[in-house]
């Protein structure tokens, strides 16, 4: 009989400590050994993981009030500005924000030694941070300047809220130009000297749930070493793209917006990073549990690296100037092997996302579920899937004079 499970039945087993949980890597071997049907009968949950640079990340902080009170107009943490255009002592520090006096790319390629991602890393490591704020002063918030030292334990709330993480699939980046370039996909050597990629492939959350059947709004996840939730679909979520027969998108596709309490996260799973010539960012660890509701879900989670393809994109011209250029696609088994064949050339591969760390996340999440401390969640609302008609928009360039005249 075909296996069917409800979220509640799985949670019942989790509470009793009887749930059978395996990682998205382990499930591959189990399916080879037992076949889909038997594996689906045995396995309750498959855990996934990814640990990669995710620029669209940041932390919302409420600092608490000073005496006299201040309505922070501009606010800095260790010299890196947080967005303060919210209520008096709320601010959002973004992962890619740089210190005001950063030399950036003035001396090319810039080093970007410290930025928002590093502030978040230091904050979650409970290091003391310099907090500065300025304001114009009001009757209710008279203070105009604040300079102090705080730690994560001093603030009221600090929650990680990342508008776009866990990209379902991503480009493989090459450089067809004749000089080295410095990108968010790392250093790319000229004339296709290397090919960089950033995903944990067969371990990656949305590659194991290609149609977002069990991953939706409200899904409880591993986030930055603590517990988080899927808050919404991520920015640039574009599920209606070409897909393979196994349902796996052949390009970017789905993304997640995630949220969680920073105070229970760890600096091991939120790591500040510097991309030479590009900027600062944050490595984020995410793990999503996938309940095996039926055999179809099991088939999705058994996806292998060789069955996941991504497009090869040129970052010298193609990406920056939006010039489509068909360089074919490659699969993740080849990318992981260290060499990949692109247009007949053997190219060494440069991984950007940490596979060993992704595996460890899937392992930790598995242990959490096995021990009964982490239950799975039925999404409150599904994410738009392959049948959506989302249009991937670009910024229209219009003359601004017309607008001025109309006003």
């Amino acid at each position, binding site marked *: 009989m075909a296996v069917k499970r409800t979220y509640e039945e799985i949670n019942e087993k989790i509470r009793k400590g009887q749930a059978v949980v395996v990682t998205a890597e382990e499930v591959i071997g189990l399916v080879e050994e037992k076949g889909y049907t038997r594996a689906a009968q045995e396995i309750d949950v498959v855990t996934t993981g990814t640990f990669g640079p995710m620029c669209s990340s940041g932390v919302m902080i409420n600092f608490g009030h000073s005496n006299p009170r201040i309505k922070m107009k501009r606010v800095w943490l260790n010299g890196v500005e947080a967005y303060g255009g919210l209520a008096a002592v709320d601010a959002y520090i973004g992962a890619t924000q740089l210190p005001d006096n950063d030399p950036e790319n003035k001396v090319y390629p810039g080093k970007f*030694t410290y930025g928002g991602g590093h502030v978040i890393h230091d904050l979650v490591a409970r290091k003391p941070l310099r907090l500065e704020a300025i304001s114009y002063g009001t009757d209710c918030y008279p203070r105009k300047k604040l300079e102090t030292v705080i730690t994560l334990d001093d603030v009221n709330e600090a929650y990680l809220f990342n508008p776009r993480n866990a990209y379902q699939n991503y480009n493989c980046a090459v450089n067809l130009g004749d000089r080295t370039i410095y990108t968010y996909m790392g250093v790319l050597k000229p004339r296709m000297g290397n090919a960089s990629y950033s995903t944990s492939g067969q371990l990656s959350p949305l590659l194991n749930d290609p149609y977002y059947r069990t991953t939706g709004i409200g899904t409880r996840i591993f986030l930055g070493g603590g517990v988080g939730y899927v808050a919404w679909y991520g920015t640039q979520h574009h599920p209606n793209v070409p897909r393979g027969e196994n349902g796996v998108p052949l390009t970017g596709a789905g993304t997640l917006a995630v949220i969680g309490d920073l105070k229970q996260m760890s600096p091991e799973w939120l790591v500040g*990073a510097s991309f030479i010539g590009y900027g600062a960012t944050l490595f984020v660890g995410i793990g999503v549990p996938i309940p095996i509701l039926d055999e179809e879900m099991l088939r999705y989670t058994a996806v292998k690296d060789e069955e996941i393809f991504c497009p090869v994109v040129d970052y010298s011209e193609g990406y920056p100037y939006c010039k489509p250029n068909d360089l074919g696609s490659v699969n993740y088994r080849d990318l992981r092997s260290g060499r990949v064949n692109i247009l007949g050339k053997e190219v060494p591969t440069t991984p950007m996302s*940490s596979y060993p760390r992704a595996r460890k996340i899937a392992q930790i999440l598995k242990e959490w579920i096995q021990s009964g401390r982490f239950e799975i969640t039925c999404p409150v609302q599904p994410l738009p899937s392959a049948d959506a008609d989302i249009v991937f928009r670009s910024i229209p360039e219009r003359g601004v004079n017309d607008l001025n005249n109309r006003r």
Partner: protein
Amino acid sequence: MVKNRVVCYFSASQSEQPIIFRLARDYDLVINIIKADINPQKEGYLVVELSGDKQSYENGLNYLRDLGVRVEPLSQTVVWHEDVCIQCGACTSFCPTGALVITDRETMEVTFDNEKCIVCAMCLDCCPTRAVELHFEVA
């Protein structure tokens, strides 16, 4: 031909002298300055790569020692901070000698073998967490 990296520590009076110029002119050595640090009191050190034939190399070194410059061989100059490394693997496609390498493509774990490192510094900039650092250590 010898090619060696050495650290030269010198005092104020020595730094007044045209040491590098003499090494090049009188001892026919090719000198590549890797790092120099001289404090306002004019004391400091130079990390240089010296190359030339064996005899001139010895003579050059003796010249430095006679001046009172302390010359020490340079060793173990790249330090890999395993606790900082996040095992992304980005450095491995830049390291020309396989000192930083992913040996097992199943686990994808990155290891560092100091013996193989030629201190080319290729890995320094491409590491997003700056887990590899150049250290000037003296044997």
